[in-house]
């Protein structure tokens, strides 16, 4: 009993003094902002030994805590793109990594990084209209590359089950990138092909607003 108590006491004093000293040293260090290194995705994938999904989750939690911290502490987002690259290499179907990651990259000013990330998602799920839709949305929100945004929205609109707003956004992006003819053609196409009366009315209103009401009289909807 006495020996056990002595051992406990020695352990408590020993552990605390070592850890106390170490933590003091850590606190005194100059901390570099941001994430300084990220493991190579190819190597991590090769040695994951079947635990790819689990490791992707850990890397994703690392991303969300890291991003969340620096969002309110000076916005030092170094290597966020590399960390997300690691996450989606380990698990190409982890949807929230694309959802949150693309916004994080766009917000950090790395719009091309966000597009690359979404491009990888689109490659993994080519029939999912969300990826091109999100790419268009990010280009609209965080850049002035509206012509490129229109291309992404058109790509999204062409996929099955796409949000009806995708075609509208494509037309709006064409208009704001001074390609009025393409915008009119897109609205006319929506008016011709949509099965929703509300969507058709909206497209017709835009055409009238652009002074193209005559087109509506010439065309018959093909539904």
């Amino acid at each position: 009993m006495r020996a056990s108590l002595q051992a406990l006491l020695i352990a408590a004093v020993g552990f605390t003094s070592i850890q106390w000293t170490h933590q003091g040293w850590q606190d005194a260090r100059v901390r570099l902002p941001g994430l300084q290194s990220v493991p190579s995705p190819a190597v991590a994938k090769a040695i994951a030994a079947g635990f790819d999904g689990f490791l992707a989750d850990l890397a994703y939690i690392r991303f969300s805590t890291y991003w969340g911290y620096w969002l309110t502490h000076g916005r030092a987002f170094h290597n966020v793109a590399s960390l997300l690259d690691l996450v989606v290499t380990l698990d190409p179907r982890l949807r929230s990594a694309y959802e949150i990651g693309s916004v994080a990259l766009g917000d950090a000013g790395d719009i091309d990084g966000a597009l690359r990330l979404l491009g990888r998602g689109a490659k993994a799920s080519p029939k999912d209209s969300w990826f091109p839709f999100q790419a268009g949305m990010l280009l609209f929100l965080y850049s002035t590359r509206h012509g490129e945004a229109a291309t992404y929205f058109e790509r999204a609109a062409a996929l099955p089950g796409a949000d009806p707003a995708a075609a509208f956004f494509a037309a709006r992006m064409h208009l704001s990138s001074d390609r009025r003819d393409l915008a009119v053609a897109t609205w006319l196409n929506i008016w011709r092909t949509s099965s929703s009366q509300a969507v058709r009315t909206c497209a017709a209103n835009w055409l009238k607003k652009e002074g193209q009401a005559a087109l509506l009289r010439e065309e018959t909807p093909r539904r």
Partner: protein
Amino acid sequence: MRWYHLASITFKEALRDRVFNLVGLFSLVLMAGAFLAGNLSAGSEAKVVRDMALAFIQILLLLVGILLGSQGIHRDIERRTIFLVLSKPIRRGEYLLGKLLGIGTVLLALGAAMTMAFVAIHGLLGGFVPLHLLPAIPLMLVEATVFTAMALLFSSLTSPTLGLAYCLGLFLVGHTTSTIHTFTQQTGTPEAVRWFGEFMLRVVPNLEVLDVKNQVVYGDPLRWQDALWAGGYGLAWTFLFLGLATLSILRREV
């Protein structure tokens, strides 16, 4: 039925070693992990908890299988119980089969208990465990059985520590043979390296076949033919390792 008694003794020995305390550890870690994941994993909480549960079940089954297997014969020699057993009319192959079946039963019970703990914790978090996750667990049991047989083989050849190290090494290699093969078959790779990659693919057990965690977690259907083939493949390796262990123990002076 002599192997049955040996299996029963092995099972009881594992009970005395408090192997089933691992279920409590598993539950605690899973609950803590689920709580943390809920706060930190922004949008993929359910997926993180499922991945974590399946990964822990696999790791614990493998560790228990390897540790019990690698200590199995060694402990019997140390305690000299092996002399008592082998002085009876019992073949050495039967002795090893009994050990394997005993450890296999421990793994089965442990797997079932951890699955129930997972189902309960998932239920507490507010949802039933999707049924499509469950086929992954029997395949994990088969993989753990392969490693138990491998550990028995190493246990008959070397010390438990080295046996453990070999098993862990083979686990890594077994899960990376396809990747090694892909890397070595790139254009411009020297012929010897390409041949090595091909050799690895043809000779080393490909344990990826038994690993469907990433598939089931997204609800991808698992064809029963594939599951059966994978199970048969695992059992074939198990019996091969068991046969080699029998040959090895036959040559030993015990």
